[in-house]
C-alpha cells in the first residue's frame, strides 16, 4: 500500500468517524443528515481506496461494492438508530449483506447457515424481547449515548489500524503457513502491478462442493470443537431456562407499579 492510498484510507475513516459521531443519538444535538453526508463522503473515499486494489473488474466486483455498501450503511444504522427495533432490523440487513459477501467468497453453506441462525432464529428472539420490553416512545437512555466522541475516536482509530494492516496482505507468508492445510484448492497469487506489492487473489473456484468441504473439515479436524460447541449449546439452554424460569423479587425492592387506567394517555400502549 502506497502512502497516498493509506492517507486516503485514513481520511475516509476520519470522515466516517465524524459521520457516526453526528448520527449517534445525543438528544437534540443529533444531526443525522450531516452524519449521512459525512458517511457518504467516507464511503466514496473508501471505494476510491478499494478500487485501486481491483485487478480485473468482473461482476463479483459490482456485487462486492453493492453488498459492502449496504453492510456498512446498515451497520452504522444499527449502532446509531434510537429505536432498538430498527437496530435489530438493520442488523438483519447486515447479516444478509454479509452473507452475500460470503457467497462471493464461495462460502455458500456458511452464508445460508448465518441467515438461518441469525435472521431466522436469533433476531426473531431479539425482536421478541425488544417488542415485549420496549415502548414505542424513545426512552432517555436511547436518545443519549455514553461518551460518543471518545468511543468514536477509539473505534475508528482501531478500525484504521486493522484495516491498514489487513490491506497489506502478504501472500508469501500466507502460503507458508498453509503448508499443513489438509483440504486445499489451487490459489493463484497475482501481483498487484500498480503498487508492486503482491496481493492474494483467487482465480479458480473451489472445485469440490463447498458443503462437503466444510463438513469434512468440521467432522474430522475440528470434531472436538464441534462436540464442545454442542456442550456449550446445552449449557446455555440450561442456563437460559434456569435464569428465566423463576422471577425472584429483589430484597426490599418493589417495582414501580404502572399507573392504572392511563394506558393510551400518559403511558403509551407498550
Amino acid at each position, binding site marked *: 500500500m502506497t502512502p497516498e492510498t493509506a492517507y486516503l484510507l485514513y481520511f475516509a475513516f476520519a470522515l466516517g468517524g465524524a459521520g457516526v459521531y453526528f448520527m449517534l443519538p445525543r438528544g437534540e444535538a443529533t444531526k443525522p443528515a450531516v452524519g449521512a453526508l459525512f458517511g457518504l463522503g467516507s464511503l466514496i473515499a473508501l471505494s476510491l481506496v478499494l478500487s485501486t486494489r481491483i485487478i480485473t473488474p468482473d461482476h463479483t466486483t459490482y456485487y462486492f461494492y453493492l453488498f459492502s455498501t449496504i453492510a456498512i450503511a446498515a451497520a452504522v444504522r444499527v449502532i446509531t438508530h434510537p429505536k432498538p*427495533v*430498527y437496530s435489530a*432490523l438493520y442488523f*438483519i440487513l447486515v447479516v444478509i449483506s454479509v452473507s452475500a459477501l460470503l457467497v462471493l467468497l464461495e462460502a*455458500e*453453506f456458511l452464508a*445460508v*447457515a448465518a*441467515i*438461518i441462525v441469525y*435472521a*431466522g*432464529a436469533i433476531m*426473531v*428472539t431479539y*425482536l*421478541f424481547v425488544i*417488542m*415485549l420490553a420496549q415502548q*414505542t416512545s424513545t426512552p432517555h437512555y436511547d436518545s443519549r449515548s455514553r461518551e460518543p466522541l471518545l468511543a468514536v475516536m477509539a473505534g475508528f482509530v482501531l478500525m484504521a489500524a486493522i484495516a491498514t494492516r489487513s490491506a497489506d496482505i502478504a501472500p508469501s507468508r500466507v502460503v507458508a503457513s498453509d503448508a499443513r492445510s489438509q483440504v486445499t484448492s489451487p490459489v493463484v497469487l497475482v501481483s498487484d502491478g500498480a503498487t508492486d506489492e503482491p496481493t492474494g487473489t483467487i482465480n479458480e473456484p473451489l472445485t469440490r*462442493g*463447498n*458443503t462437503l468441504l466444510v463438513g469434512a473439515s468440521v467432522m474430522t479436524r475440528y470434531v472436538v470443537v464441534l462436540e464442545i460447541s454442542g456442550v456449550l449449546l446445552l449449557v446455555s439452554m440450561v442456563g437460559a431456562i434456569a435464569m428465566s424460569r*423463576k*422471577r*425472584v*423479587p429483589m430484597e426490599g425492592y418493589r*417495582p414501580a*407499579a404502572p399507573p392504572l387506567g392511563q394506558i393510551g394517555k400518559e403511558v403509551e*400502549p*407498550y
Partner: protein
Amino acid sequence: MWEFLTSQMGVSIMLAAVVFGVMQGVVAYSIYFERKIAAWIQDRCGPNRVGPFGLLQPIADGVKFIFKEDVIPGHVDKVLFVLAPTMMFIIAFIGLAAIPWGGQWLVDGKLVNIQVSNPDIGLLYLLGVGGMGVYGVVLGGWASNNKYSFYGAIRATAQMLSYEIPMGLCIVIVVLTMGSLRLEEIILPQTAYWSGAIPKWNIFLHPLVFLILFITMLAEANRAPFDLAEAEQELVGGFHTEYSALKFGMFFLGEYAHMITASAFISVMFLGGWHLPWLPWAQPEATSFAAVIVKMLVLGGKIAGFLFLMMWIRWTLPRFRFDQLMRLAWLGLIPMTLGLFMITVGLLYFGLHRSWAWTCGGDTVVLVLTLMYVAVSRREVSGRTPGMNVIGVGTAAG
C-alpha cells in the same frame, strides 16, 4: 439472442419472470378456490357473481384491494407498517427461486436446468427463506400498535420458532437419506423404482417424516389449524387488524404464496418433484421442450393437490389452542423427529437408509412409541391438568 435465451442465465431470467407472473395469478386463483372449497364443504355456493362460476372474482378482488382507501392509522410506526406486508410478500415469493420446475432441457446440444437458480445449498436456502417468513407477521403486529395485533405477532413468533425445529430435523432426515442439499439431486434418486413398479418417492420411504413435515409446513405457513396469529374470534384479525386495501391484500397474497412455496418444497422432497411414474414425458431422460412442459404441469398438479389438502384441512379442523399448539411441537413433534433422526443416522451407518423395510420399520417404531406414550399419558385435551395454575403464583409483578 437465441444464444442468450437458451443459455442457463437466459432460461433462469425467463423462468423467474414466468414463475413470478404465473404465481401472481395462481395465488389469486387459489384464494378463489379456497372460497369455493370452503363454500362446498359448508353446503354453500361460494363466489358465483362475477363472471361465469365467479371466475373473475380474483380480478374484482384485486381491483377492490387497489382502489380502496389505504388507511395508515395515526398511532402506528409508519415505516414498519408499510414494510411488513412487503416483506411478507417478497419473502414468500423468493423461496420459489430454488424450486426445480422441469428437470433439464436439451437445447442446441447442451443441457439447461429449468430452475431459476441451482445452488449447492438449495434446501438450506429454502429453510432460511422460510425462517425469514415470520418477520412480516411480527413487524406488522408490532407496528400496528394495537394489542390484538401484538398478541398475534407474539403468537406467530413463538409458533414459528417452535415449529422450525421439527421442520429442520425433518429436512435433515431427508438430506441424510438423499445425501445432497441440491434439490435436483434430491429428485433424481426418487425417479427409480422398487421392483419395477413403485417409484422410490421419499413418502414411501419415510411416511411419518412426510406427515410431520407437512404439519410443520402448515404451522410455518400460518395455516389452519395453526393460524393463531390471526385468530378472528380472539384477536379481531390478529396481526393484520389495522391493515386495509393493498397492504392487507399483500398479507393475503403472501400467505397463499407461502402455501405454494411450501407445497412445491414438500413435493420436491417427498413426491419426486416433476416425476410421475410410467409417464415417459416425466422421466429424467426426457429432455425435450414438451417434456419440460409436462414436468412443470406434473409439479403444478402436485402443488395443486397440496393446496387442496391444506384448504380441506382448514375447513375441517378447528383451531388449536395455544398450549395445545406448543405441546404438539415440543412434546410431540420434536421428540418424534429426534427419534427418527437417530434411527436414520443408525441406518445410514449400516448403509440401510434407502431400504424401504428398514426406514419404514424405523418410522413404525417411533409411531408405536409415541402411541404408547400418548396412551399412558394422563393429559387430557382440555389442557387443564392438576396443579397447572400453580405456576405464576407468588411471583413479583412484572
